[in-house]
């Protein structure tokens, strides 16, 4: 079948129209004409969000090189125009930025693994042998996940009965704990690019792929873990492992499963969207890539050659259903739906609600303690700044008496609405990690520039294989200008100390506070304690949201 015909069968248009009419019911969200003979269910980047949350999508997500102006690098009104989404519709609220606080008040929270369970059960009612595939970043991102070393998420996810999973932040639990959990998993732990660091051979604990027999079809699911774990996260926490994209080995694995009779080849990936796009153009023989890591939510597959890439969002906000027609040894058609988990529309599954509440019960008092209020929308996503990070940088400068603050450009962390109370759980949701020490140190102006240039190249290098998939490091107390299209070393200019208005002097030292250093032995109080103390002093948080970054070349 021609590629164009395959593409035409996306299930998006239908729910977009319904959504535009603002008559949203569970049946509308879950409605799907069961198609073909194989169903895939994709969840990814849940970041330990067991309960419904608010999550604002980015308003700035710049694409570079061949990805300039391409999805997922469209935001707000441009995104809605690309997919024909009406302003103010539920799809607007779920998928794009703009009027977030007002729409959130109307449509409510999203996510919650008990709602996700309802969606999974519904799909399994249509197609009992549907494959549930978890793209990773599951055992990280909340207070309960931190305190149980991932066990709360493992217990709840196991109840959803996944068939396979790949990994990223899981490794920041430390390799011993990862091994302990993986050995107990009742499903496949996959990663063709997870290697033994010493021998540069495939790691024994993780298999490259697994075969499944579904709808009379021999399905191969190949795992692709986050390629740059030892660079983006602390290598010393999992020194036994090496990663990398390893697309030659991916091709070898695709060839191996095809030779062994695979009629459908699915890659469960934590590459990030642009890396998956590039890989799909290099590796031949992949039918579907279930893409994770960069937290993009796309209502239609993106096609590269004969490969379809599915992006399923983050934080439990979406589930993707992919129905495939596989006959005569190959994929003949695809039907896809990105299902937004509107928490007030989709009924929770009572069994999973009970399980979640049981996991949270020992920490309930700690989680729910109110630290203050916010007058402002608090969110994180965006290439350069978010109001949560503005608040975190303010906390670092104030509590640690620093001139400049640095906050990592991670993409996880739910949002809060103006007027909301800020609980301890909310603070942990945007800071929790196994290396959360808030350091205080001195850096020269020259070294600060080196850091900014280095991180900028990890986002804006025109070759996706040289990108790591995060956002720009957030800076408090300092403004700067960035030209996206310049090479590394020339992007950053006009670094200015905001407290004095003076230009940053390359030779002078500045007191810098930050958190999430990848270096072993980093000392300091935990970032969530620093932020809590700051919020308690403020009482009510107000963040202007004005950016001190001037961007050109976008």
């Amino acid at each position, binding site marked *: 079948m021609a590629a164009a015909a395959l593409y035409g069968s996306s299930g998006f248009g239908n729910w977009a129209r319904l959504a535009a009419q603002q008559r949203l019911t569970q049946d509308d969200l879950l409605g799907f004409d069961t198609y073909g003979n194989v169903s895939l269910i994709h969840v990814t980047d849940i970041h330990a969000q067991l309960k419904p949350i608010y999550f604002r999508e980015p308003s700035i997500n710049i694409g570079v090189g061949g990805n300039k102006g391409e999805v997922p690098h469209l935001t707000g009104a441009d995104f809605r125009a690309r997919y024909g989404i009406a302003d103010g519709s539920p799809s607007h609220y779920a998928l794009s930025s703009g009027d977030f606080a007002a729409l959130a008040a109307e449509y409510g929270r999203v996510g919650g693994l008990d709602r996700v369970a309802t969606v999974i059960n519904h799909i399994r009612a249509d197609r009992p042998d549907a494959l549930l595939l978890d793209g990773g970043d599951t055992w990280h991102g909340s207070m309960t996940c931190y305190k149980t070393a991932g066990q709360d998420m493992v217990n709840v996810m196991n109840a959803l009965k996944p068939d396979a999973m790949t990994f*990223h932040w899981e490794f920041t639990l430390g390799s011993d704990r990862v091994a302990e959990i993986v050995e107990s998993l009742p499903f496949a732990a996959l990663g063709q690019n997870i290697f033994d*660091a010493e021998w*540069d051979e495939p790691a024994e604990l993780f298999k490259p792929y697994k075969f499944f027999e579904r709808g009379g079809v021999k399905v191969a699911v190949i795992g692709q873990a986050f*390629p*740059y*774990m*030892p*660079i*983006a*996260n602390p*290598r010393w926490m999992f020194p036994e492992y*090496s990663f*990398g*994209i390893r697309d*030659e080995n991916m091709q070898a694995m695709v060839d191996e499963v095809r030779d062994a009779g695979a009629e459908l080849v699915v890659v469960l990936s934590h590459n990030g969207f642009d890396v998956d796009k590039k890989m799909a153009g290099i590796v031949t023989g992949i039918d579907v890539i279930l893409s994770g*890591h*960069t*937290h993009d939510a796309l209502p239609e597959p993106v096609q590269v050659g004969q490969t379809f890439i599915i992006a399923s969002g983050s934080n439990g906000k979406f589930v993707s259903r992919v129905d495939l027609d596989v006959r005569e040894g190959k994929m003949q058609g695809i039907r896809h739906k990105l299902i937004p988990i509107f928490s007030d529309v989709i009924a929770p599954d009572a069994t999973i609600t009970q399980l979640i509440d049981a996991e949270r019960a020992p920490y309930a008092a700690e989680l729910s303690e109110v630290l203050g209020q916010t007058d402002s929308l608090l969110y994180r996503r965006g290439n350069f700044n978010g109001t949560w990070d503005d608040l975190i940088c303010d906390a670092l400068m104030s509590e640690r008496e620093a001139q400049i603050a*640095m906050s*990592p*450009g*991670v*993409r*996880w962390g739910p949002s809060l609405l103006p007027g909301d109370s800020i609980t301890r759980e909310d603070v942990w949701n945007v800071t929790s990690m196994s290396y959360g020490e808030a*350091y*205080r*140190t*001195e*850096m*020269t102006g*020259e*070294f600060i520039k*080196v*850091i900014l*240039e*280095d*991180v900028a*190249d*990890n986002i804006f*290098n025109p070759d996706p294989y*040289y990108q*790591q*998939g*995060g*956002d*720009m*490091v957030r800076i408090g107390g300092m403004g700067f200008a960035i030209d996206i299209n310049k*090479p*590394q*070393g020339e992007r950053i200019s006009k670094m200015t100390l905001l407290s004095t208005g003076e230009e940053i002097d390359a030779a002078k*030292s500045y*007191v*810098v506070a*930050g958190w*999430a*250093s*990848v*270096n072993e032995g*980093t*000392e300091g109080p935990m970032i969530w304690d620093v932020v809590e103390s700051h919020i308690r002093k403020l009482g009510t948080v107000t963040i202007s949201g004005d950016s001190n970054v001037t961007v050109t070349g976008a």
Partner: protein
Amino acid sequence: MELTRRNALAMGLGAAAMTVLPFRVHAATDDAIAAFTGGAVIAEGGVTLDAPEIAENGNTVPVSVSAEGASAILVLAAGNPTPGVAEFHFGELAGSSSASTRIRLAGTQDVVAIAKLADGSFARASKTVKVTIGGCGG
């Protein structure tokens, strides 16, 4: 903790300030290639060079080279102060003309492999390996 420059470097997002710019190709690289080839023409392709796009640890970067029937393969780190890494020779009894090693890269640069093929001609492959501070993946 004590605020010294040494600690500052260790406590920041990581490695040394040296890593910021791609290293320029050292003149010694051209000299080493000329010495290996005797100035002969070098074709692109015919040799496989496997190295990571981004080094997990710039101090020990795994690199593999292979070229069918090659009698020798020269490996260079074009931006290192001393570019020469290894020169592998394969006798007639060698099962395959392939080798793996680990190299230290002073910063982002091209790794270059030149193979002397069975017919006496030369082939070249190169790959940019990025050495980065890292720390902000999301």
